[in-house]
């Protein structure tokens, strides 16, 4: 079994079979992670570079762990700010690194489409670890893995993504992936943070948590960023918490337990209440564990396709 593409640039357009294959492959890698010796040999001799043009701790560590557990050699490249401000273009940076004989590139970049651009100028497999507000496919895959683990199937599962949808690559990848797998996806957030015409993706839009909580099995709560306040998209964190904060009180009004996801890092008592984040229906830490398994699966499937 192999994926249809040499790259994982996003989940937009990725088939259900490919998503299924990644999720199923991750099951066996999760089992590896439970072993006393957590290392397997499939990518031995392969060299992977983690090109992080935007600061990230957990995604980079998660990828690095996944790479090392597959026995790949790993190089980390971190550059903050855009490549243009550094004076070297992304194309030159990538080609220079590739000249050192790299097999796979994991890229995180503030600009949407940067991984797609990269995939056209280098010969390596490219994995998108987050590009601007576009996609973060491995995050969505680990969210889907976690939901499937908890609810057995994604088919018909009702998931609402809450928060700043406009700027969220996590939201987009989740929408594309979950819709492909037959889930019912909705979004909830302030009108200023809902991108135009999103309903054309088959995603109902809510502006009141009270309206959507009774209708869902899971809430994926996005991190709210303070700089959006400066751009006039919402008036204050206090108001955001009052009207869009996912709290235990709000969730407990539902007639069934609601699974709580968050891509992290969480702002406790801003977009999510601390008791809920630490509560029995929170799967936030499982997401982190599953993230390593998912990334191992993706790296394995792409790395062994060459």
């Amino acid at each position: 079994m192999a994926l249809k593409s040499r790259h994982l640039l996003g989940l937009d357009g990725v088939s259900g079979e490919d998503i299924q294959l990644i999720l199923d492959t991750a099951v066996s890698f999760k089992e590896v992670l439970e072993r006393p010796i957590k290392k397997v040999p499939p990518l031995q001799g392969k060299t992977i570079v983690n090109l992080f043009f935007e600061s990230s701790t957990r995604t980079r560590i998660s990828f690095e762990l996944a790479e090392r557990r597959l026995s790949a050699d790993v190089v980390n490249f971190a550059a903050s700010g855009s490549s243009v401000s550094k004076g070297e273009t992304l194309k030159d940076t990538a080609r220079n690194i590739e000249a050192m004989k790299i097999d796979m590139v994991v890229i995180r970049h503030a600009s949407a489409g940067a991984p797609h651009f990269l995939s056209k100028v280098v010969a390596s497999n490219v994995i998108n670890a987050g590009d601007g507000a576009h996609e973060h496919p491995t995050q969505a895959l680990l969210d889907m893995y976690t939901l499937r683990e908890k609810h057995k199937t994604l088919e018909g599962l009702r998931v609402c993504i809450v928060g700043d949808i406009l700027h969220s690559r996590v939201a987009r990848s989740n929408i594309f992936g979950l819709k492909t797998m037959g889930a019912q996806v909705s979004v909830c957030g302030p009108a200023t943070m809902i991108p135009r015409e999103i309903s054309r993706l088959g995603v109902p839009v809510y502006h009141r948590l009270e309206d959507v909580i009774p209708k869902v099995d899971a809430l994926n709560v996005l991190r709210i960023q303070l700089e959006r306040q400066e751009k006039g998209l919402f008036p204050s964190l206090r108001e955001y918490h009052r009207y869009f904060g996912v709290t235990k009180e709000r969730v407990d009004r539902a007639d069934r337990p609601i699974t709580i996801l968050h891509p992290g890092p969480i702002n406790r008592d801003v977009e999510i209440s601390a008791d809920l984040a630490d509560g029995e229906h929170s799967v936030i830490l499982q997401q982190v564990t599953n993230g390593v398994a998912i990334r191992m699966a993706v790296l394995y499937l792409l790395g062994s396709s060459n």
Partner: protein
Amino acid sequence: MKVHLKNGRLVDPASGKDETLDFLIVDGRFEKIGHSVPSDSSAQMVELKNKIVVPGFIDMHVHLREPGFEHKETIESGCASAARGGFTAVCCMPNTNPCIDDESVVRYIHEKAKSVCKGIVDVYPIAAATKGREGKELSPMAELAHAGAVGFTDDGAPISSPEVMRRALEYSSMYGLVVIQHAEESSMTHGGCMNEGFISTRLGLPGIPHVAEELMIARDIILLRYVPNARYHVAHISTHGSLDHIRRAKAERLNVTCEVTPHHFTLTDDAVAGFDTNTKMNPPLRTKEDVLALKEGLKDGSIDAIVTDHAPHTIDEKEVEYTEAPFGIVGLETAVGLAITELVEQGYLSLYQLVERFSTAPRRICSLPPIRIEEGEPANLTFIDPLTEWTVNTQSFKSKSKNSPFNGRKLKGKSIGIFNNGQMLLSQKFE
């Protein structure tokens, strides 16, 4: 120099003529126009059977990049590109370095243009409306007009302040010259790099809402009503809403005109999906609904002119992240082919109307004398083969830059040559 054009189909809206004729041109002027003009052995003979002869086309929206950005384009390479594309004249935009806000720059461009490409392409500078294109103080419009500027604009940026716009309209009206607005409400477009809508939502790219363009046009029309003797022209309109505002203003008989680019009547924002930076321009590619409205606007005359907004950028400048790439594409060598393919072939424009949009109207907007195809008049002509089918190859462009989203596109119809200022240029294949 004598040239004998044989069997060319003249399509000339000014005289209302559409007939096959011979033209004898001596020293750049029509000596004889008629049926079966006797051949003269000293004349260069050009057979134009099944070809169309039209008054010389002008592209009133071109970025020649000189002075200041000669790595992208020069007056020479830009004129060569224009000539190849079928244009005997271009108006060049003032966002050069230094910008065209001083008469010395106007004179420099004029002199340079005369010395390149044997002067076959007339270059008419459009000067900055404000000093340094900063939108604060008026440029020396009288001096610029006297030096030969044919209009005023801060193109690339809007004239944002309503007060400055009002004064620009008032001051330019003394000289009868047009003020060209790059219509964009900048407070709504910061960081945007494509049309805001379904595709930008899918791609997660920052959007440029269509209302940002429409707001500025609506405001300017209100100002124009207050300064009705001014002349106002909207550059590169891209939305059906913009067209609605312009239609209403025209119905009021306000002095408003507008232009559209071939890429805006051909492509939609769907083209951005592969993150090809040659789909990044300002205004951005819009929706199918907008494309259809713009074609209708060309058909009913609400849109006066077709222009290219020829905006050369080097490959290195364009081969970057989408959000970092500069706006704009080159257009001089694909405009006529796109217009014939998308407009004439699809029944939106007659050949008369095509000539009006590419020659008559833009010359009028820029206060240039009309072209007369009559004995005794200087010959200023574009030759078109409306039937030839060809494939765009950006590597063959005369322009220094190759940034076009149309590489590989099949088109029908192209210019095969021009005649202007006593010079003739024919495409190699045709020669």
